[in-house]
């Protein structure tokens, strides 16, 4: 199978003031690949995937996503964001809109689709995340797990080529994590390219093609999950895994 890279990071660095959040990050994500990024908090995982759709601008190095080089204010950044879906830790649904409106506002206003077409797509994805009956409610009336599934559907409605997940289950009550992960597993089975920042190692083991371990703004290890979970190459990854798998 020919590998087409969709995200290419070369020596990417990022500062917040004097603090160096990312140092020399090299990473290639191929089309259809599922990459799970893990690491202790503050290791730069979120910053890295936020750079992938330009919510943060990297300061050094090169970052190409979907054939376009990202730069601050580069023309085409908006186009790029339409093709890169993002799911946030805090869901970030639009509270003043109904669930259905949350899903169709992007396709209608950004992609200029007709309401009928946008609604048809929206209902299809609501079906897929298993909450078609909630279409006319407001986000605040839904549980956290349902809200996050809506957020996934909202991103999918834009027909993205890559999906980024920034700790999608970290803000959820334990009993709701499963329903969100199930949806993500199904999405992975459709062949969607996914980059997921998460601490859910069970999920990672199930869907990841590649595990990325970060610490202190650097990528410490990139390996396939079989190796990563059984015999991690780096000492630090081993310590990290011991800590989170203990419980």
């Amino acid at each position: 199978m020919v590998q087409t890279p969709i995200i290419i990071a070369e020596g990417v660095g990022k500062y917040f003031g004097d603090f160096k959040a990312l140092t020399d990050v090299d990473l290639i994500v191929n089309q259809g690949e599922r990459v799970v990024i893990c690491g202790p908090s503050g290791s730069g995982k979120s910053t890295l995937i936020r750079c992938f759709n330009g919510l943060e601008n990297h300061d050094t190095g090169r970052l190409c996503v979907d054939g376009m080089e990202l730069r601050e204010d580069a023309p085409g950044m908006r186009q790029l964001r339409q093709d890169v879906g993002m799911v946030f830790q805090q869901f970030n649904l639009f509270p003043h809109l109904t669930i259905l409106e949350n899903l169709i506002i992007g396709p209608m206003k950004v992609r200029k689709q007709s309401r009928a077409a946008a609604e048809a797509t929206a209902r299809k994805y609501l079906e897929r995340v298993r909450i078609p009956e909630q279409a006319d409610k407001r986000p605040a009336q839904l549980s956290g797990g349902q809200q996050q599934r809506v957020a996934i559907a909202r991103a999918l409605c834009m027909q993205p080529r890559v999906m980024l997940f920034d700790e999608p289950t970290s803000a959820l009550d334990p009993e709701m994590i499963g329903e969100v992960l199930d949806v993500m597993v199904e999405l992975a089975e459709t062949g969607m390219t996914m980059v997921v920042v998460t601490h859910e190692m069970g999920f990672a083991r199930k869907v990841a093609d590649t595990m990325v371990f970060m610490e202190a703004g650097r990528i410490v290890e990139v390996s396939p999950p079989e190796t990563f979970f059984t015999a991690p190459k780096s000492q630090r990854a081993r310590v990290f895994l011991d800590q989170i798998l203990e419980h």
Partner: protein
Amino acid sequence: MPSFLKRLKWADWLILIVLVGAFGYVGLRLEGTLNYTWRWELIPDYFIRYREDRQEWFANLLLQGLFATLRICIYAGILAAIFGTILGVARCAENLTIRLLARTYLELLRNIPPVVIIFIFFFFLSQQLIDALNMNAWARGIARSDSAPAWEFFFGDMRRFPSLVSGVLVLGLFQAAFVGEIVRAGIQSIPKGQFEAARAIGMSRSQEMRYIVMPQALRKVVPPMANQFISLIKDSSIISLISVQELTYKTVELVASTRLIFEAWLTTAACYFILCFGLSLLFRRLEKH
């Protein structure tokens, strides 16, 4: 005894007695030294009077003034809301020039006394605009035409239309600065995640404001906006200085022609109070729903 009287402690009684005493003393002094004859019975006539010669009721000075105040406040309120929203958005703009312009406007208005601002706006803005548009001639034309009554319902005496425009412009632009601050606070109260989510689905800055941020921000600023509208009603009395014939101006006229100094001013105070307090009760009730 009503229950609130039982809740009063001796210190509360002391305060109340001192207050009543102070007011009583001022009242007695007025009676004794000023030799003022109260003629409250004349006041109702200055609201509404029956004209024997024409056999009809007509609105006299105070009621005319009250209507004028209401008209001016409604139009100025609309102007302030529109311009203020633009200012508030401009304060949050990415473009530095736009942000600085909005900031400059606000700081000028915040650091110059309202009376001075009103004169400056009057001479340099509304007077110029009225002259440029030849509004005087136009309004006089309307006043003479057949359609005058319809116009007068909305704008009062059409011969006074330019002065109404002045008042609305001056008051609206003045209040817009404060509305702008309210709107800015509303925009900044929207969580960062909302902006990011909008951007993540590829929205432009303007789409993000229009579809995501502003609908939420405007809903949040309704209560402070309502309070600002009440401020606007109170501040509207300043525009009597540029000869806009609203309630305060009419009161000055009334005092000059009748010498009902205390009665007229107390009545006008009551009018403003009832209007503003009534609105604030109304807004508070609406807010609960």
